[in-house]
């Protein structure tokens, strides 16, 4: 897509065009991510939230062209700065250096048999062409910047002698080492206490500002997303159900799922120890073919059409906010 020359628009770093992901089954494909489209601007910080199993990690892996086998991208393209990376052969060039990922499970991204120091220096030597000694110094700095108490010792340790949060911070250090254009962070702070979490998010924020790095933050912590991101994408059962500016979505959700999700956030200072609020009913079964909206069976606003027609993601009356719902919630001022 051409940039509009009359408007000084921020350029796009990544564009996801109608990407679907499926896993082969006996008689075809189970599609678990259904034709997803969105784009991320340079230096923009976007939050990706949604139900467990809704396809957030697979979407991020699809951007990286790393969908786990036997899964595959069944349709769609991914553009990195207008370059189609969906079928390029020179994947090694951009992976890690232009788009980096902090994967949800830090152990799978760290090699258990290789010392931390080697794992992080290798990135710098390979992608930045650093000398060994230079890479070592830079590695120590990176480990220090993610709040590891003794970076020099950590360099000589293997992943299994680190705590969960320490491993997570090593994975973060590796991901930011090459100052990528897009950083995908899949639940990067689940193993961190809130003070270190805020320190790490500050660090990612300053990297984002200094190097114009865009961030796609996948998180179940809506408060973290509220504080860190400017835009939010909400997924349910392999589809984007709502997207828009973070303040709009969190204060005036239009999709009943988004609203129910926000209502489930527990309050630390709520003294009435009643039961936690949940969304009634069961999560959908990914891959099952639905006629209508897959949230309909759990939705208090569902009407007949919801059971027969899948709603499209459409711009709502409020600018910038898009919602896929036949009966979107009205904006009520509180």
């Amino acid at each position, binding site marked *: 897509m051409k940039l509009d020359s009359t408007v000084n628009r921020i350029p796009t770093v990544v564009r996801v065009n109608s990407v679907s992901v499926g*896993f082969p089954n006996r008689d075809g494909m189970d599609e678990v991510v259904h034709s997803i489209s969105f784009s991320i601007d340079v230096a923009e910080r976007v939050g990706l939230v*949604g*139900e*467990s*199993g809704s396809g*957030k*990690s697979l979407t991020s892996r699809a951007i990286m062209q790393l969908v*786990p086998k036997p899964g595959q991208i069944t349709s769609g393209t991914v553009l990195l700065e207008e370059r189609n990376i969906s079928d390029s052969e020179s994947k090694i060039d951009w992976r890690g250096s232009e788009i980096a990922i902090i994967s*949800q*499970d830090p*152990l799978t991204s760290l090699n258990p048999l290789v010392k931390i120091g080697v794992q992080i220096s290798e990135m710098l030597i390979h992608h930045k062409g650093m000398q060994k000694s230079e890479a070592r110094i830079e590695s120590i700095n990176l480990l220090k910047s993610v*709040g590891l*108490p*003794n970076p*020099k*010792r950590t360099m*000589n340790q293997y992943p299994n*002698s680190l*705590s*969960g*949060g*320490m491993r997570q911070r090593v994975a973060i250090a590796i991901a930011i080492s090459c100052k990528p254009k897009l950083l995908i962070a899949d*639940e990067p702070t689940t*193993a*961190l*206490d*809130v*003070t*270190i*979490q*805020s*320190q790490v*998010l*500050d660090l990612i924020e300053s990297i984002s500002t200094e190097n114009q790095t865009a961030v796609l933050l996948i998180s*179940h*912590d*809506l*408060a*973290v997303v*509220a*504080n860190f991101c*400017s835009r939010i994408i909400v997924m349910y059962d392999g589809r984007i159900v709502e997207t828009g500016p*973070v*303040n709009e979505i*969190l204060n005036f959700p239009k999709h009943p799922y988004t609203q*129910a*999700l*926000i209502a*489930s*956030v*527990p*309050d*630390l*200072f709520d003294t009435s*120890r009643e*039961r*936690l609020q*949940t969304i009634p009913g*069961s*999560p959908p079964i990914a891959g099952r073919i639905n006629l209508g909206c897959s949230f309909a069976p759990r939705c208090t606003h569902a009407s007949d059409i919801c059971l027969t027609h899948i709603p499209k993601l459409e711009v709502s009356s409020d600018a910038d906010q898009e919602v896929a719902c036949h009966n979107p919630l009205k904006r009520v001022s509180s």
Partner: protein
Amino acid sequence: MTMNQIPLVEVTDLKVYFKGSAGILKSRDIKAVDGVSFTISKGETLGIAGESGSGKSTLARSLIGINKPTSGSIAINGTQISSFKNSALRPIRKKLQMVFQDPYDSLDPRFTIFESISEGLQIRNLAKSEIKDEIANLLQTVKLPVSLASRYPKELSGGQRQRVAIARALATKPDLIICDEAVAALDVSVRAQILNLLQDIQQESGISYLFISHDLSTLRYISKNVAIMYAGKIVEIGSSDNVLTHPQHPYTKALISAVPNISGKRGTKIKSVGEPPDPANLPGGCAFNVRCHDVLPQCSIETPKLLLNLNDSKVACHATANNRNSDSSKGGELHV
């Protein structure tokens, strides 16, 4: 807590040290757990929060015998497990289950979900047909479709894997489940469903939980008592209402002040903090003194004891002990 009842878990002055690495660097021991005591009664939940690397997982692993205590004692139902031979412990350990922070520690990647859970069911001597039904049951309780049973762990999402690990722990009908960040990968709604479920099971069966979580609102809901760990020690312990809403220790205050808020309008940015301590080279006295606002001369010399506070929490802090009547609402920031 009833006075004359034997607690399910009684940990006394537990220390777990790791040998420092032999190498170019001076090898000091890492005091991962350094003098921890607590009890968990039957049917009760103790929550543990604290700094990353403060020894929570090590403490949990020592309860199920993975990390050997350096000193101190662990008693389960009144039986010392730190002094027994491994074979004698097996029947006791079977009644303890752990959901590990890393789901791959709970689930063997070579086993299907069905196989993993049925392994847990073995000790209940069920018939083949019963096993199948029970697995379907367990998956439904953790809100997973039964069709996932034939998959391998890597074919699940992060949150689905965690729920399988919980189902596997529940399968054995244990006396205690240690949940180490067991709900961290779940969205808030599914997490709430699982927490409600764990509460229900506790009410029905009198099971106890040791719940490790960085999410303080999870702890507030699930646990009767909460302990806060810093650098291998419990710095504050008491009822979850007291500890989480009227924190006394400066570290607890700092922790709670850093909890991000969903209605946090952009601009109310989360504070940045100072350096976490190096477990192989802790500052003398109170390990928190180098980051503390209320620091007194004695804080760098003498390790504060965990003492009963006015509001029934125990707090290890010289400053809190000195001015118990002072305003507890101030403070709560770390030195940068």
